[in-house]
């Protein structure tokens, strides 16, 4: 399921400059695409626009071949699963219940869960390796476990695309690597994955394509080797860097200099 934008501008009221300024880009189906850029460069705004959650000032965001804002919300949720930056849980809820919420787009408000739904939930729990936690209260989980629950909920939607906003931001090395590994596996199975992250080197290692945003513009777009150029990165991040190849993984890496 491809996504894209066409001359998309989003201006928040009261802001001096647009959060996104005439952005045209395409996110191909079946790839893991990483969205990078400094704080305030427009990453989360792009994500919200691609999900039809914010109204463009001009231009359009498209999902498949249609304007995303023309999609019915439930139909959209059957197609794209989202893991937003954070959620706070105010009431007691078990892991199983939270993951089962991913079936809402298929069930709607009234239909009861059927075997098809239970199977999707079980499969999502299993793929995120949290089957043992199913009866635990969500509030008793560690940060890494909670993120897996949220990703499992998105998988239970049985979407064709996954959009994740810094899913590994507060996780330790092991949890971060295992989540990125899962995303890579699912992409290889045909899922379209869009990942917002600050981890340049891990993005270069796991992503097929990258979009580098800077002040609401696309500074670079393409494969990691097309985007990871010293002069581009230094300009966007306003810091001296060296780009070389990691001798162990063989992927490109950025080393900030002092």
């Amino acid at each position, binding site marked *: 399921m491809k996504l894209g934008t066409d001359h998309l501008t989003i201006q928040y009221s009261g802001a001096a400059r647009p959060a996104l300024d005439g952005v045209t880009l395409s996110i191909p189906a079946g790839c893991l695409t990483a969205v990078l850029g400094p704080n305030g460069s427009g990453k989360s705004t792009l994500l919200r626009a691609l999900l039809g959650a914010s109204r463009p000032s001009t231009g359009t965001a498209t999902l498949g071949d249609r304007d995303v804002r023309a999609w019915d919300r439930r139909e959209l949720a059957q197609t794209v699963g989202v893991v937003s930056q954070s959620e706070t849980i105010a009431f*007691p809820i078990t892991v199983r*219940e939270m993951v089962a919420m991913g079936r*809402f787009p298929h069930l709607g408000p009234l239909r009861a869960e059927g075997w098809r739904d239970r199977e999707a939930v079980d499969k999502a729990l299993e793929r995120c390796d949290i089957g043992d936690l199913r009866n635990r209260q969500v509030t008793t989980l560690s940060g890494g476990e909670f993120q897996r629950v949220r990703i499992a909920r998105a998988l239970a939607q049985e979407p064709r695309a996954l959009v994740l906003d810094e899913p590994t931001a507060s996780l330790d090395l092991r949890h971060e690597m295992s989540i990125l590994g899962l995303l890579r596996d699912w992409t290889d199975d045909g899922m379209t994955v869009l990942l917002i992250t600050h981890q340049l080197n891990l993005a270069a290692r796991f992503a097929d394509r990258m979009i580098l945003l800077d002040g609401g513009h696309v500074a670079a777009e393409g494969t990691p080797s097309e985007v990871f150029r010293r002069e581009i990165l230094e300009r966007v991040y306003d810091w001296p860097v060296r780009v070389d190849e990691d001798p162990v993984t063989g992927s490109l890496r950025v080393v900030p200099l002092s």
Partner: protein
Amino acid sequence: MTRSRTTAAALILAVAAAVFIAVRFGSVALSTGDVLDALKGRGDPVKRDIVVGLRLPRALLGVLVGGGLAMAGATFQALLRNPLAEPYILGISGGAAAAAVTVLALGLVSAGSWVLPAAAFGGALLAILLVFRVASAADRSLDVRVLLLAGVVVGAFFSAMIALWFALSEASTVRNAVLWMMGSLAGADWRVVVTAAAYTLPAGIALIALARPLDLLAIGEDTATYLGANVEQVKRLAFGMASLITAAGVAMAGVIGFVGLIVPHAVRLVVGSGHRALLPLSFLAGSAFLVLADVVARLVIAPSEIPIGVVTAFAGVPLFLVLLRASLR
């Protein structure tokens, strides 16, 4: 789900038992045989009047008001994503009480028994509309943070109005107003029961139909949107229906505190936060609780009564603390 079913069966029995106790016991002593005879339309006409004309409608009003408040409380807690929310948090009780105190102070209640509930209902609706208008002014979407703030502020305004009437009124009027505000089911007759049911039952069914979207909303609006819920519509409907139930309850029985705050939490401790179980079970638990509270309110200093709000707090606080401790083990 089996746990919900067991709990539902237990609560249905509890409601039935509570209604029976409420009809059986009171300042006039009746035997179970008297009650059964009266329900069949036989026996002493005075006893029949007490059972069918007074105690039964009063118990049924308790079922409707207690259940309605508990369900509205659960809904407001999800809508505002705030465990401290209760049915009166958005100023509904303030609007109702201000209107009720106004008609009491002006002596308008002598026009008929319908005046006080009608005024309270009107005041409640006024508060609801005010709060809704303020919270949905910007961008046509309903901002729940503004909703909460507007509710508290509107409530404060009505409180000031009540205080002003108190300052201007005689002591007996103030006493009547305070007693009304503490809640009572004494105004029950069959017409009141039918009116309360006409508001509470359809709105309650609408809320149960919204149960799954409310589950999503309780997690967060963004999440609910991304999972395919029509968030604005759900918020409006939930706010409207829960407010209507609360307004009807306040109009018929005054401001009965505590039921709407505590019952949903107690039910959550047993069956979790899924609203498909939480809402109907809260209704049943709230019903049983309020009917029994009313029995206590009638019997403690019989033949006089104490305000039912006093009983709900005195009985509910220890009960809730016990449940809370049990859940922490």
